[in-house]
């Protein structure tokens, strides 16, 4: 196989041709500022509003509820800080989970320094939050629940509708970081009782540097970016027109035939998991076996370390990622893998392969064949494997 096999779609995705084509005119010919009154400006304005409608349709929302931001991280920051500061007179307690993306976790940690109190919910060994623990954590001072839709590392999907219901019953605002879920899972914000939702275009074949915060009508939150009157005076800054157009096109394509696409993708995912589990010993699937993103595979190979695995995969033109500390420069491995109860050694040996509609069964077979050899090679070098063999 001569071409690169890309299985890191949870990190980012290539921009689709149709998306790029839709974007290109807005860099050169149609460069007007949407706030300008002349026709060049209003042309851009129309394009932005069309994209807003495309996003609203994909989420089952109204276009007035869609606000463009510069990233998923900005959306998370805005949602959490915006609610925290707006509802400060009502209370100072926020509930989140231990397996959130750092955009949520580090925002919560920042707010703790500002006098807010944060509860970090545990998850079970599959990575699912416990609804009883959530209910028991609610206090009179709870103003916000922020729980991710689906986990970026292990792919586990949370019971969002139930969480939304609990929040609603207790008059608490519910935000979900849906960066990994949009374009992969059917989402209807009304049906799911979601008040705020973050998404990012580059996870579903749109451009990088553009995101959305969905804000249910009637939910009030403070601004994060202060300035001009863009985005109905809620988010200042000249609109990134080309990227907004790209996001609109990408979300339309991604949610268009979701059911059919997901059937194929989850079959591919399960085939990859099945082949890895049947051909390699001492392997553990991380995350829920069925309640997981259709493209997510996350496994731990015992006795070896993830970065070496990634380097050897790269030598074979295969791209994946790992929760090992050595891939991030941190001392500890992934907080998600530790939260689902993995010991450090097993967490260091994790490999995430995240698939897209562009991956094939042929690629799966090639990757598994290479993995068998690489895992064996690294184990032959590992003093931990030597011990296990000795005990056998």
């Amino acid at each position, binding site marked *: 196989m001569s071409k690169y096999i890309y299985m890191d779609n949870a990190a980012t995705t290539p921009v689709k041709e149709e998306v790029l084509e839709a974007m290109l005119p807005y860099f050169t010919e149609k460069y007007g500022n949407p706030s300008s009154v002349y026709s060049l400006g209003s042309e851009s304005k129309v394009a932005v509003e069309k994209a807003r409608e495309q996003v609203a349709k994909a989420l089952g929302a109204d276009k007035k509820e869609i606000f463009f931001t510069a990233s998923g991280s900005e959306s998370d920051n805005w949602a959490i800080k915006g609610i925290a500061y707006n509802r400060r007179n009502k209370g100072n307690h926020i509930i989140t989970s231990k397996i959130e993306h750092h955009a949520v976790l580090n925002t919560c940690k920042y707010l703790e320094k500002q006098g807010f109190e944060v509860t970090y919910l545990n998850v079970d060994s599959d990575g699912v939050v416990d609804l009883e623990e959530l209910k028991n954590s609610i206090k009179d001072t709870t103003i916000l629940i922020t729980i991710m839709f689906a986990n970026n590392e292990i792919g586990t999907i949370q019971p969002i509708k139930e969480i939304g219901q609990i929040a609603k019953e207790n008059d608490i605002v519910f935000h979900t970081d849906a960066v990994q879920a949009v374009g992969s899972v059917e989402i209807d914000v009304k049906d799911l009782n979601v008040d705020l939702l973050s998404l990012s275009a580059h996870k579903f074949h749109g451009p990088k540097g553009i995101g959305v915060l969905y804000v249910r009508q009637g939910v009030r939150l403070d601004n994060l970016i202060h300035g001009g009157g863009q985005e109905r005076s809620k988010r200042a800054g000249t609109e990134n027109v080309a990227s907004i157009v790209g996001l609109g096109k990408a979300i339309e394509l991604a949610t268009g035939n979701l059911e059919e696409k997901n059937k194929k993708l989850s079959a591919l995912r399960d085939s990859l998991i099945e082949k890895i589990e049947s051909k390699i010993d001492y392997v553990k699937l991380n995350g829920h076996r069925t309640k997981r993103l259709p493209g997510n595979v996350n496994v731990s190979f015992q*006795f*070896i*370390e*993830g*970065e*070496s695995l990634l*380097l*050897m995969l790269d*030598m074979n033109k295969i791209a994946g990622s790992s929760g*090992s*500390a*050595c*891939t991030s*420069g*941190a*001392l500890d*491995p992934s907080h998600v893998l530790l939260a689902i109860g993995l*010991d*450090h*050694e097993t967490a*260091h040996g994790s490999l995430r392969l995240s698939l897209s509609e562009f991956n094939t069964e042929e690629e799966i077979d090639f990757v598994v064949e290479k993995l068998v050899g690489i895992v064996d090679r690294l184990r*032959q*070098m*590992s*003093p*931990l494997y*030597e011990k296990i063999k000795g005990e056998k």
Partner: protein
Amino acid sequence: MYSEKVMEHFMNPRNVGEIEDADGVGEVGNAKCGDIMKMYLKIDNGIIQDVKFKTFGCGSAIASSSMATELIKGKTIDEAMNITNKAVAEALDGLPPIKMHCSVLAEQAIKSALLDYSKKYNVHIEGLDDVDFSDDHHDHIEEE
């Protein structure tokens, strides 16, 4: 991120394996940090005749182990004692700053194996009395 030399040693590591009747065996690091190095020495007449290693760890940990074995093979105990982590890193044409601890681990693995040898054969080795194999090889910088 890695030099060509690191990648070359990672992909084709020298002296991987075990020595069954080793004169000195040292193991440093721990699984918690994500790297463990085990080094085996065969010593005759104060000269390291053979050396093998096994490593659980990242690319630079494996490359550092491989380079360390090359640097001490055929050398005297004194010469091996003088191999610093810097020497290992330099021989690899440098390591990224966050990976320097891998070369520290390689230096410690050599010393740990020599310490085992000195105890086994009751030989005093200059410089081993005050050596510390605690897990401080990680110079961890917390992000604010």
